[in-house]
Every structure is written in structure tokens, then in C-alpha cells.
């Protein structure tokens, strides 16, 4: 029977997009479906650390080795998504000397370049480190933009012929006896790019093979075909600071614990994290004390954090998995390895594999291994090229940076735009039209916003993850509106308003967890601008009752008016 696609990938996170790109590059016909936006699940809710492997150098050396290998590959193929910040494992007086030594040895055993710095040398690198920091191990940790990287994978998959459908939720697995042959999806606004205010449809997509790459949600997909996938979702909180208190990744050098890392990320720094098992990846408590714990504990390493301004907090859910029977109680003890569950072998149900576990830094290696497995299942003979082929945006970075002019923009804006767009900068920014800045905090220009809209339709959250617009200090208070303006006239007024409301609400969601001090003032200002000046909270256009305009003041100067059009000429 003819199928719609050779391989159907479920899940638009780093793993799913990585698989789609890999298989598409190997020449396979691929379709990817994602419930929300790309990165909506775990990928968009990570702290942005590109692991050197140092973190696992004591407890999990296989993972550590894999991390440093992938770290080096991603610097090559995804240079425009990576900032080579370097990282420090910092020892405080109360932290164990033995563990420090083990960490150093572990790094060396795993091929991770590591160097010991004295306390004062470490403070030379990072002046805000606490005075009593004893010493530190320097490793090649980095910062990575998970949004940009994931989107680049999806774009490249499309460039190689893949179909990528976001806002397409799997509502059923299609199963014929013991064979899974596709899914039924519900399109939020019909197939293709999302458009607000457009009614949805459902679609059956059939495939020769299905890859369940939904991570923490893999169990829910499995349940649609009565398969038990014992994924153990584990939540972690991250708190975003408004500036970079550090320019290097700062790790606490101790065995394990909550609140032990600060990652500089673009204009911000991200504090992380906790590790606590939850039962439902879509519904778990987000408690204020978790935010306080991040700030209080990490202030032991970087004291100014206690006084700093936080702009939002968010929680992510890890897709942890361990083979049945292991019985680990503490989620921090569960391995970060990934597992490929071939349901034919495991459950006697053919046509689908599930991918669980794993971590962002090694998404490409995971995708390679899974793609190998898929090719084997389909009898396709093709090799992986994702370790060598740069992602869109990362081709020719050096020549680009050397020779490009500044597009007539203020230089910090131009520099940041070029950084975000990488080698796509010329294509996007060279426009005859005026190109004003739309998002002042992050220096995002109209051309970038329009480029992102062309990729993602009316979904302003998708525009946000592509451009960083609305992710700075004001959390969209000053720019959401202007982003929505750019949707018009390609999209109509109703669509633009609905998209604006959705983005503004989404920005508020994370901001709620940072509501004190400067950010509470900012929240009040944002509220005032949108409610007072624009009356968006009680917009007559969205009210159920019509306004009786005639009952209101129509102006005093009836008699003074110009009589009729052009009367004064």
C-alpha cells in the first residue's frame, strides 16, 4: 500500500528535528509532526549549556566522552548557535578536595581539556565569583541557543525535502493488528504554517515507519497503541537574570545537587536547576521556593546574584528513562543515556520505535544512531553526513564576519543580528525597505521579524524563538505590539490581534515567577501600557456588546470644522 511518507517523526524538539534532518539528508522522504511550536517541549526549556562533558566526568564517563565529541562537532556545524564561553567547575571551601581531584582526573580520562585555576586566577576570569572560592577546573563548556539550533535542523530538513508540520497534535496512532502505520493529527489551524483564527482540521498521515521522539511525552504516545513506555519525567527550574553576571559557564564542583550552574546566554544569564520526578509532563507544580533556592544557593558562588534582577523563570521536563527493573529512586541517579525502544523487539508491535532519555548536547549523535536503525528497518543503504555538513546559517561564518558591511544599522544591532542569522545575514538583512528595530532590548530588526514570519506564519511565539524578540528586560511589554504589527497586512486584523494576545500571555507566564523588585515594576509598566494606553484588556473590538458611540463626547468644535472634504482649498 502506498504510504504518505517513508518516515514519520513525532516530536519537534532537538531529537526529532535532528532525526528529520539526518534522514532527509540521506534521501528519505520524511514528515515531522509537532504538537506545538518547534522546541515547545524539553528543548525550549533547557538552560542552554553546551556540555563539555565535565559534568558527567565522574559519574557517567560514557556520556562525558560522547559530550566532548559532540561539543566539538557542534562548534563546527552550528557555529552561529554556539558561544564558546568556556566553563569553570568551582570549588568552595566546604566542597570536597577528593571530588575536585576525581573531577579533574575524570575529565582527563574522557579527553576533556581541563586546567586547574587558583581562586584568584578564577576571579580574574570571572570577577564576580565569591571571594572564598578556592579553585576551579576550566573546561570547554559553551552556551548554545537551543531554539536557533533546533530551527536550523528543521529548516535544513525542509531544504532536503522533508515536511515539517507544527501545531499538529497526534491524537491517535494508526494500527493494523500488530503493525503501526501512521498517526492521526489535529491541525491547530489546518496544515501548513499556522495562522491564528483559522479553523483546524484532522489528517491521517501514513508512513512506512514511525519514530516516536516525543521525549517526556513518549509514554502518552505509546499508550495510544497500548504500549507501555516507562518514561520518568523530571522537572527542573531555571531562572533568567536580566544581564550576564558571568561570561563563563559556572558549575559547582560537587557530586550533585540542586542549583549548581549559571550559564551566560546571549544578553542574560540562566540559573539552574532542580531535578524532581513528576507524574504528568504537562501539569506539575511550579513553586516559588524553587526560584528562591536558585538565587540563594547560586549566590554562594556569585554573590551579586542575590541583588540582581530576574526577568522570568521557567520549568523544563527531562525525558528520563531507565530500563524496567532498575528501581532507581532519585531522578538525579537515573542515567542521561538515551534508549531506542524497538517496539517490534520489545512488544511485538512493528512499525515504530521510541526514543527516550538522552540530552541536548548529544542530540545529533542520537539522531545518527536512530536514523541508522530506521534505515536498517527500511532496508535503505545510506550514510550519515550530519557531523560534516554545516547547518543553515553556519556556512562560511569567517568570511561573513570578515567582509560584511553593517546594513546601515547601529553597530551593536548589526552585530547581534549577524550573530543570530549567521551566514543567512545577507539574505535576510539586505533589503531596500527601511529596517527599523522592532525589539529594542534584543536589537531585533523588522527584516528579521519578517523573515521569521515567513518561516512560521502568524505564530509570534515561533517568531520569538527564531529572533529573540520579546525575550529581553521588558519581556515584550514594549515590542509584542510591534511584532504583531508586522503580521499585517499579510495576515488580517483579527489574526494579528489574536497572535498578539497569545504572545503577551505567554510572556506573562514566565514573568509571574519573577514578580518582585525591578521586574514587578516592569510588569506594572507593561500592564499599564497595554491596559491604560491601548485598552487591550477591555478592547471594545473583542467585547461582546457593541459600544454606543453616540453616547460619548463627539468633540466641542462641531461648528469650527472644515466644511466637507478639502473645504479649505
Amino acid at each position, binding site marked *: 500500500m502506498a504510504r504518505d511518507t517513508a518516515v514519520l517523526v513525532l516530536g519537534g524538539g532537538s531529537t526529532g528535528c535532528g532525526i528529520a534532518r539526518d534522514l532527509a539528508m540521506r534521501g528519505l522522504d520524511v514528515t515531522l509532526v509537532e504538537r506545538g511550536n518547534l522546541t515547545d517541549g524539553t528543548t525550549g526549556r533547557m538552560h542552554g549549556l553546551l556540555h563539555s562533558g565535565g559534568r558527567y566526568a565522574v559519574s557517567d564517563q560514557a556520556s562525558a566522552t560522547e559530550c566532548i565529541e559532540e561539543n566539538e562537532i557542534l562548534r563546527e556545524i552550528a557555529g552561529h548557535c554556539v558561544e564558546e564561553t568556556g566553563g569553570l567547575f568551582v570549588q568552595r571551601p566546604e566542597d570536597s578536595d577528593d571530588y575536585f581531584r576525581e573531577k579533574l582526573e575524570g575529565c582527563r580520562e574522557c579527553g576533556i581539556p581541563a586546567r586547574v585555576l587558583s581562586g584568584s586566577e578564577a576571579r580574574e576570569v570571572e570577577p564576580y565569583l565569591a571571594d572564598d572560592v578556592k579553585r576551579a577546573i576550566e573546561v570547554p563548556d559553551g552556551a548554545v541557543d537551543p531554539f536557533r539550533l533546533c530551527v536550523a535542523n528543521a529548516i535544513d530538513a525542509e531544504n532536503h525535502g522533508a515536511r515539517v508540520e507544527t501545531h499538529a497534535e497526534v491524537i491517535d496512532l494508526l494500527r493494523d493488528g500488530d503493525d503501526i502505520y501512521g498517526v492521526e493529527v489535529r491541525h491547530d489551524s489546518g496544515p501548513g504554517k499556522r495562522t491564528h483564527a483559522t479553523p483546524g482540521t484532522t489528517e491521517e498521515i501514513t508512513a512506512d515507519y514511525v519514530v516516536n521522539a516525543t521525549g517526556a511525552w513518549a509514554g502518552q504516545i505509546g499508550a495510544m497503541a497500548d504500549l507501555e513506555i516507562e518514561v520518568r519525567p523530571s522537572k527542573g527550574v531555571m531562572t533568567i537574570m536580566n544581564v550576564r553576571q558571568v561570561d563563563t559557564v559556572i558549575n559547582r564542583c560537587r557530586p550533585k545537587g540542586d542549583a549548581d550552574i549559571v550559564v551566560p546566554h546571549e544578553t542574560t544569564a540562566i540559573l539552574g536547576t532542580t531535578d524532581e520526578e513528576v507524574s504528568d509532563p504537562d501539569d506539575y507544580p511550579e513553586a516559588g521556593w524553587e526560584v528562591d533556592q536558585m538565587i540563594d544557593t547560586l549566590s554562594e558562588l556569585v554573590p551579586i546574584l542575590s541583588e540582581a534582577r530576574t526577568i522570568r523563570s521557567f520549568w523544563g521536563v527531562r525525558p528520563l528513562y531507565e530500563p524496567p527493573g532498575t528501581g532507581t529512586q532519585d531522578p538525579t541517579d537515573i542515567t542521561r543515556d538515551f534508549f531506542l525502544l524497538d517496539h517490534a523487539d520489545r512488544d511485538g508491535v512493528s512499525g515504530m520505535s521510541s526514543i527516550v532519555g538522552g540530552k541536548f548536547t548529544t542530540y545529533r549523535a542520537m539522531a545518527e544512531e536512530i536514523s541508522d536503525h530506521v534505515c536498517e528497518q527500511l532496508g535503505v543503504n545510506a550514510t550519515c553526513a550530519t557531523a560534516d555538513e554545516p547547518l543553515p546559517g553556519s556556512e562560511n561564518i569567517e568570511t561573513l564576519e570578515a567582509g560584511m558591511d553593517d546594513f546601515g544599522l547601529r553597530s551593536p544591532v548589526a552585530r547581534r543580528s549577524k550573530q543570530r542569522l549567521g551566514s543567512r545575514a545577507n539574505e535576510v538583512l539586505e533589503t531596500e*525597505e527601511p529596517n527599523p*528595530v522592532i525589539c529594542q532590548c534584543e536589537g531585533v530588526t523588522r527584516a528579521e521579524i519578517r523573515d521569521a514570519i515567513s518561516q512560521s506564519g502568524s505564530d509570534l511565539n515561533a517568531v520569538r524563538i527564531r529572533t529573540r524578540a520579546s525575550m529581553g528586560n521588558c519581556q515584550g511589554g514594549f515590542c509584542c505590539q510591534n511584532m504583531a504589527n508586522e503580521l499585517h497586512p499579510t495576515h488580517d486584523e483579527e489574526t494579528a490581534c489574536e497572535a498578539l494576545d497569545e504572545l503577551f500571555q505567554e510572556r506573562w507566564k514566565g514573568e509571574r515567577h519573577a514578580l518582585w*523588585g525591578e521586574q514587578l515594576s516592569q510588569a506594572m509598566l507593561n500592564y*499599564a501600557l497595554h491596559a491604560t494606553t491601548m485598552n487591550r484588556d477591555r478592547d471594545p473590538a473583542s467585547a461582546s456588546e457593541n*459600544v454606543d458611540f*453616540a453616547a460619548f463626547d463627539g468633540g466641542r468644535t462641531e461648528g469650527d470644522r472644515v466644511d466637507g472634504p478639502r473645504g479649505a482649498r
Partner: protein
Amino acid sequence: MAIEDDILVIGGGLAGATAALAAADRGAQVRLVSAKQSTLRHASGLIDVLGYAPAGDGPLADPFAALEDLPAGHPYERVGGEAVREALAFFDEIAGDAYEGGHTDANALVPTHGGTVKPTARYPVSTADGLASDDRDALLVGFETLPDFDAPLSAAHLEAAGAPFEARGVTVQFPGIVRDDAKITRYAHLLDRPETVQTDRGETTAREALAAVVDPHLEGESRVGFPAVLGDDHADAVRADLGDRLGVDVFEVPMGPPSLPGMRLEDLLYDALEERGVRVTTGVPVVDYETDADGANADEPARIDHVVVDRNGTEIPHRADQYVLATGGLVGKGVESERERVFEPIFDCHVPHAADRYDWFVDDVFGDQPYARFGLPVDRDLRPLDADDGLEFPNLRGAGAVLGGYDFAAEKSGAGVSLATGYVAGRRAAEEKR
């Protein structure tokens, strides 16, 4: 030696300026100190009194009718409806020709830059021809380099709101703006001075060039709206000149920050302060205070004897008989917060709030937000109350956004509360000075 006045007003926004003017009007010697630029530059320049009842009913055509039903503790309830009317009359006198709306009790509906209409009681004269309750067709003009106002989208939104006229929007290039990210004031100054600009027909004034760009787009509309960048010091002349050239009435659509109508209102107030002999010092935060140890009975709260003002690192005592606190709300930093508490930073006056900061907000961004009501509770004389409803200081009054118990953003009552409470606080302070 301390600087001495009858009345010291702390805060230079609408509430502080009104309090100072009202007190000076009663013959008091008044000084106004403010820590920084007022938040007026964030404000639209519209004078809202009450657009929606606290329960959400509205838009209200008659704000005064609804004043009687406000809950206890609301600043309007504290001062009473008559005081609101008096304060508006006082404002009308100060504003003179610069503002309109005083001819009727009814609210006006004004289109703002998001395309929505909002109810307001007084509006700058520059906005007068833009009222949504006026049924003349309108052309809205936006500028390619000004992303805050999308004229075609705003026009479409006005239609969605049911406005009783046809609105069309066009986007044009602003003559003489060469940088894509020019500041709002650059637009205003080009028109204000007016500067000459290069066009394809040669050198001409910015006003003439702008009219020439807009003219071909007119399709019989008798009024044309621009984003609020039409001049600064000579806004009336700019508008009149453009109107003459186009043969239409020209109006401004209020914008977000930095807002020229807000800055013009600030200028108007500061000119009035100067006229009335109020001494004004800006850029000087009040950092401390001392109470009067002598005269206070044990069972009475202490009076404020003097405050300490920080002028470039030098601490200067300022003594007055009466004090007005008009330092603003969360935005103006008259109310501040930490992870564990919300407080008033100068006198540490009581600010009611939930102990758990997760009870300071609700999940719907436009829901009934507790944080929006943060501020000082006051008695009917606007004197701040402590947690037991006792007076914090007998000679301190609060005015404007520093007061609690109302959500100015939801109600569209910010300017009205500032005027009414500023007016009452200033008057009472003047009446009570020894």
C-alpha cells in the same frame, strides 16, 4: 540649616504637580522635589477619570455617575465625587486651550496607537479631531520607520471596534528621516523648527514635504491622523500648517513611550508651577526623614519634622509643616518590593500585601491583578494609615499612584486619581499649615 517651606511635595508627576499647584493657589509657600524624570513620558497624555467600573462594566459614557458606587478605600471614595469635579475644573483652568473635553461630563473615546479606542475625560487639543465618537471618515497615516503605529492595522481595528465612520490607513515614508531608528523627538523637531529636507522635487520644509507625501492618499476624508510626533514646542502650529496644506483637520494618535503628549503635559505643568512661584528641584531623591520629638504626645503619632534630600551626594535637610507624598506606584518606584515584602521606601508607610508573593498576581495577564492595587491606604484626609488603621504621620498626605486600593490600568482612572488626590492633598495641606 534646613531649607524651610510651608509645604513640601515629594514627587514631580501629575499628582505631585497638582498638589503643589493647589497648595500654592491657597497662598502657601510650596517646594516640590523629585528624584528623577516623571513617568509622564510613559503616559499617553490623556486625562482618564473613570472608563470602567472596578467590576469591569463599561466603557462608561458618564464617569461621574459611577463615582458614587466605588468601594470603600478607593481613592475617589476617599475624596468624594465633588472633589473630583473640582480637581478637573482646576486642571481645566491650568491647561487652558491645551486640553479639551471640559464642555461635557461624558467621556470621549480616543483611538490610540494599538488601534483600540479608550474612554477618557480630557484629551490634548492635538487629539480632539481624532475622537472615535465623531462620525467623520478618517485617514490614518503611519511611517515606515515608526513600527509602533501600523496605520492600516489600526484602521481595521477601529472598524472591528464598531467605530461609526470609515477609517483607512496608509504607510508612508517620513521626509527627512534618514536613519531607520531615529528617535521620536527627531520627527518632532524636523516639523517643529521646521527643518528643510531633500525631496525629489528639491529642498523644502519638512512640513511641506510631509503634506506632499500624504496628499495623494486622501480620498475625501476630512480628518487625518498621525502618530503623536507632530512637533514639540510648536505642536499647534505644526498641526495647523499640515491641516492647511492638506485641507483637512489633523490630529494625533496617542502613543506609548516616549510619549510627546506626555512630555507636553509635563511642560505645561512645570510652566504653571513656575508661574505660581513653586520652587522645583528635580534629580534629588529624598533619602531619609526625622520626626518631631518635641511636640508629640505619647499617644499621638509623631509628626515629620524634616526630610533629607540627597543632592549629588550632599544630604540637605528640608523642613516643612506639611508633606505630600506623590512618588508614584510600582512604575514610579514610590512603591517598591523585594522577594518577601512590598514597601514604601521613604517613610516605610504601610502597604497591604499578601505574605506569599505568589498571591500578588493571577495567571491571566489581564485578570484582576492584586499587584496593580498595591499602595498606601489612607483616611479621608488622604493621610496614610498603618496596619491598625492608625495615622502614620499627622502631617503627611499621599496622592496619585502611591495610593492603593485601585487598579488604574483596568479602570482607566490613573490621571483622574492623580488630579483629584493631588488637588485635595494640596488644598488640605495648605489649609492646615500652621
